[in-house]
């Protein structure tokens, strides 16, 4: 009996020492969902890996565990996980579902967690349209780690060979004329290179290029009640423009089923000279093709000298309101958005800087050959950017417009009828 008693006492003593000892510090594990894999080799993935490494070196008591997700399913999955109380501590939210994420109460107020400790200068350095989008009734629900400016990506080498300058594209008609000039056929009249294309699959869909057309006319894409407004005169005219290029053989009909990944494969294979592309993809493509072979310009305008508004989709990073390690998650977010973090995102990741001071400090870097897209995107975002509204959910609007395009290209459906159907589909899916 005394032997059992002694063993029990020894165990209790050992447990007390273990629990009370200040030397034993349990590391906080912070789970983060993002589409970037820190083990990957693309510039943005390398940048994220470096930020995590630097943070963990400075904070050995916090482990950042990245669980990479498929980008177009990540935010809905997060919202479902929030419902089940099993969401990750840090989440990257796409702009399309930002309204849902904020209204669901799934995101914590970053002001309380760390922004209130910032100086007014530091806040002012960040404040822009993206900041305002995530700032609701005095609370800050996210900070954009990835600002995406979706515009016209082109091959400068092919432009130079054809004697074309980017400045030649001032209006939509110019774009068509240049695309026509860049379209190449072989001796059998078969197209070996198309002038322009976008990707029109419903999977991994980027915002449709008809949107700049609609917005340039002054028409809204959604009504104030959140209903789709695709079939306006500007929408019909814009859709006729893009599907007309397919009919004219300047754009490929295969694009009806292409995802953005398919599109960039074609672009990288010299099969297309200009594509709808996002600023965040430029560095990755430059890594494959060379810095002198990928560049970005704003969409042309209805009239020369006034570029059409471009969609500024992006990724807002937030902290899950149900997280048990909010303080550690906040510490990492603060680090990721710090001066060194922003510089890594820009110089290593090839992203548009989040802070005005970074843009200024990296002036020399941005003016280097091949980095001009950063200035185009930063200027475009400030002067001609459009962010999806957050007052209502807009999930599925990209797919609805792409489906309409497929029906026009493949089934020969009337443009107005296809856009009307897309409106009805979007409204039905969103219960409006």
């Amino acid at each position, binding site marked *: 009996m005394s032997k059992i008693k002694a063993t029990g006492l020894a165990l209790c003593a050992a447990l007390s020492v273990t629990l009370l000892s200040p030397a034993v510090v349990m590391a906080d594990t912070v789970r983060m969902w993002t589409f970037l894999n820190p083990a990957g080799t693309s510039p943005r993935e390398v940048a994220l890996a470096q930020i995590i490494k630097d943070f963990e070196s400075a904070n050995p008591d916090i482990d950042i565990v990245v669980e990479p997700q498929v980008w*177009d*399913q990540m935010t*809905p*999955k997060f*919202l*479902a*996980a*929030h*419902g*089940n109380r099993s969401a990750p501590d840090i989440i990257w939210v796409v702009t399309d*579902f930002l309204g*849902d994420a904020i*209204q*669901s*109460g*799934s995101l914590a107020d970053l002001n309380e967690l760390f922004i209130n400790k910032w100086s007014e200068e530091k806040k002012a350095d960040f404040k822009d349209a993206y900041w305002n989008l995530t700032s609701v009734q005095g609370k800050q629900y996210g900070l954009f780690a990835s600002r995406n400016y979706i515009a016209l990506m082109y091959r400068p080498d092919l432009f130079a060979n054809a004697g074309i300058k980017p400045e030649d594209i001032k209006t939509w008609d110019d774009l068509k004329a240049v695309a026509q000039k860049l379209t190449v056929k072989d001796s*059998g009249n*078969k197209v070996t290179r198309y002038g322009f294309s976008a990707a029109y*699959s*419903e*999977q991994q869909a980027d915002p449709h290029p008809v949107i700049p057309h609609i917005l340039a006319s002054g028409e809204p894409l959604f009504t104030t009640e959140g209903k789709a407004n695709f079939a306006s005169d500007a929408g019909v005219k814009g859709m006729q423009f893009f599907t007309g290029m397919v009919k004219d053989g300047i754009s*490929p*009909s*295969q694009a*009806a*089923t292409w*995802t953005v990944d*398919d599109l960039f*494969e*074609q672009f990288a*294979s010299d*099969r297309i000279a200009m594509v709808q592309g996002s600023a965040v993809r430029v560095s990755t493509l430059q890594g494959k093709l060379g810095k002198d072979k990928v560049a970005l310009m704003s969409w042309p305008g209805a009239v020369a000298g006034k570029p059409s508004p471009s969609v500024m989709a992006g990724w807002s990073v937030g902290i899950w309101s149900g997280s048990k390690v909010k303080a550690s998650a906040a510490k990492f977010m603060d680090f990721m958005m710090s001066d060194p973090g922003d510089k890594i995102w820009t110089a290593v990741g090839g992203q548009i800087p989040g802070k005005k001071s970074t843009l200024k400090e990296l002036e020399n870097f941005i003016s280097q050959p091949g980095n001009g897209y950063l200035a185009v995107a930063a200027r475009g975002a400030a002067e001609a950017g459009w962010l999806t509204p957050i007052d209502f*959910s807009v*999930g*599925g609007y990209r*797919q609805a417009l792409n*489906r309409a395009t*497929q*029906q026009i*290209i*493949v*089934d020969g459906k009337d443009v107005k009828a296809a856009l009307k159907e897309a409106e009805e589909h979007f409204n*039905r*899916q*969103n219960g409006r």
Partner: protein
Amino acid sequence: MTSRSTGLLYIVPAFSALALVLFSPVFYGFWFSLHRIRYGTASEFIGLGNYTQLLSDPGMAATFGRTAIHTAVSVALTVAISLAIALWVHRLPPNRGSIVQMIVIIPWITSTVVATLLFKWVFISDIGMAMSILRMFGLPDLQLLSDPNSAMGLLIAVSVWKRLGYALIILLAGLKSIPEDYEEAASLDGAGPWDIFRLIILPLLKTPLLLIVIVLTLSNINTVESPLVLTGGGPGSATRILAIDVFDRAFVNYDLGSATSLALIMFLGNVLLVLAYVRLSKWKV
């Protein structure tokens, strides 16, 4: 305590664990589908509201129709081709038979996403190998994914290519279990190859054939990876089958109410198919 109740007592823990793992998601899903879903959580009780909204969708009937066509044609082709290959391989010398089996089985053991991507890159992409060969011979490019009929045809082709290996293995096992004496006796009685196949082999393959038909039907109804990677449901809605519709409703439009309702309707269909299998497997020829 009777031996019967003792036996029941032994299986209670295992059965409870099984029920919890297998059936609790179904019951939770059903309860979930009876509510209005806001931001991933069930709010107000709306009865069958999600189901009526789903069935009033003008595109729903066509989606069911496309699923039926895709499943029926895929299963019929897979069974017919695998049966022909199995009969051929069964008569080959063991070494050559093994080589054929390995070739047919490779797509089955490969991940669906990887196999579909390979199929797409090699045979369909206009920067792929097949198109390069066509161009080399001056032939026109085939835009198979841009045409609604050929897109569905391709989806069926991928399904057959992917699942042929599974059907072949089951049928070969069935063929090997038929005693050689039966065929010899029939030959001595003057039966020709067609009679032997029709009157001896086919009836004795009833159980493996039924198993294949049910498993392939379930697998084709529930497949989401191939259409997602190959066509994305397009062009238009040409390859939008039930599984991809559930996926899009849940993860593209974030309409979890109708996605759960449709998933449960599919689950019910799956259960009915399994019951049909159990019933038919007792059927005597």
